[in-house]
């Protein structure tokens, strides 16, 4: 049960955006700009970093919903998503993505551990300033979303099937705050 009284019928972050629409609008705008905005990082890659960070933070709602969005976006390559969450080092992703996931992992644990060396490794395999920036900010942003969603003990659907339509909606329509009341 959530720690505070939240609008019923909304899971996870949606219940919080319905509870306080002004902060909700800013949070959804940030997710939209970061995951679906203009970047050389594809939408699928951005969602992959979001799902990976959320799984490292053990946030079930964010992991399941962003993994579902990433699976939808990767289409026939959707097995990439679960492989990355299980062990990104052996997952079938590019060397560049592996170096970006290494940066995301450092951000999740302690951002001060993002060293010149791991950034240099990412550059060596083609990562740009924009991609490094976006990776750090996606990982940082999900360290916020995960804590917000779990810190207030929001409703987390237990049926994996519930996340599939959620992921498709996020991947196609984007981040639109819920209408409430």
């Amino acid at each position, binding site marked *: 049960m959530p*720690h*505070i*009284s939240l609008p019923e019928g909304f899971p996870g972050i949606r219940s*919080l955006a319905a*509870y*306080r629409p*002004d*902060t909700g*609008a*800013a*949070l959804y*705008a*940030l997710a939209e*700009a*970061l995951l679906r*905005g*203009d970047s050389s990082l594809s939408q699928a890659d951005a969602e992959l970093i979001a799902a990976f960070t959320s799984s490292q*933070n*053990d*946030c079930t709602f964010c992991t399941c919903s962003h993994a579902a969005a990433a699976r939808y976006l990767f289409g026939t390559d959707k097995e990439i998503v679960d492989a990355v969450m299980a062990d990104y080092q052996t997952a079938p992703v590019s060397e560049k993505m592996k170096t970006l996931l290494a*940066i995301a992992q*450092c*951000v999740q644990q302690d*951002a*001060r551990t*993002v060293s*010149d060396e791991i*950034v240099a490794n990412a550059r060596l395999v083609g990562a740009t*300033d924009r991609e*490094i*920036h*976006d990776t*750090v*900010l996606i*990982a*940082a*942003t999900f*360290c*916020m*979303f*995960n*804590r*917000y*969603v*779990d*810190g*207030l*003990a929001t409703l987390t659907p237990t049926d994996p099937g519930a996340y599939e339509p959620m992921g498709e909606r996020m991947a196609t329509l984007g981040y639109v705050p819920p209408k409430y009341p």
Partner: protein
Amino acid sequence: MPHIQVPENAPGILGPMKFSPQTAEPMNALANALLQTDEGLSRGERELIATYVSSQNECVFCQTIHGAVASAYLGDEDWSLVKAVKEDYEQTPLTNKMKALLAIAGSVQKGGKNVTSEQVEAARHEGATDKDIHDTVLIAAAFCMFNRYVDGLATVAPSDPNIYRYRAARITQKGYSAEGEYTPQAT
């Protein structure tokens, strides 16, 4: 040196925000909605929570600028109250409600699942409302983002306290924005 190329004279979070205005805009909108209001918690109390979480994350830039803003609101001219809150808030003259909310913020900083029903009950017992609890959790969570953005890109934190005092005065007057400089313009 920052990990990416950011504009000169843009210390701390201002550098990456100028690099990426499209994400800076909603981040500043969040900071303004969350910190620039006295509805429930006061501006000074909100900034104290932000400062405490930033110190737990050992983010020098964020704890110094938000500490300076908190001090400006709370009449803490020599920054001694903010320093005491960072060191051990239990020993400060803060209200029991604020102490209970800082305990929740401390749990959020470690990970959202660390917030217990007992902590929430204790805060309610001291008069915290749903909105106070909500805002505390979101401020703490948001600074787990801001701190990581600032340190994950190895931005530069100025060492001169006057730079933070100057910027803090500007924030109390105009709110959060990626515009403007951290140092007074030469006249």
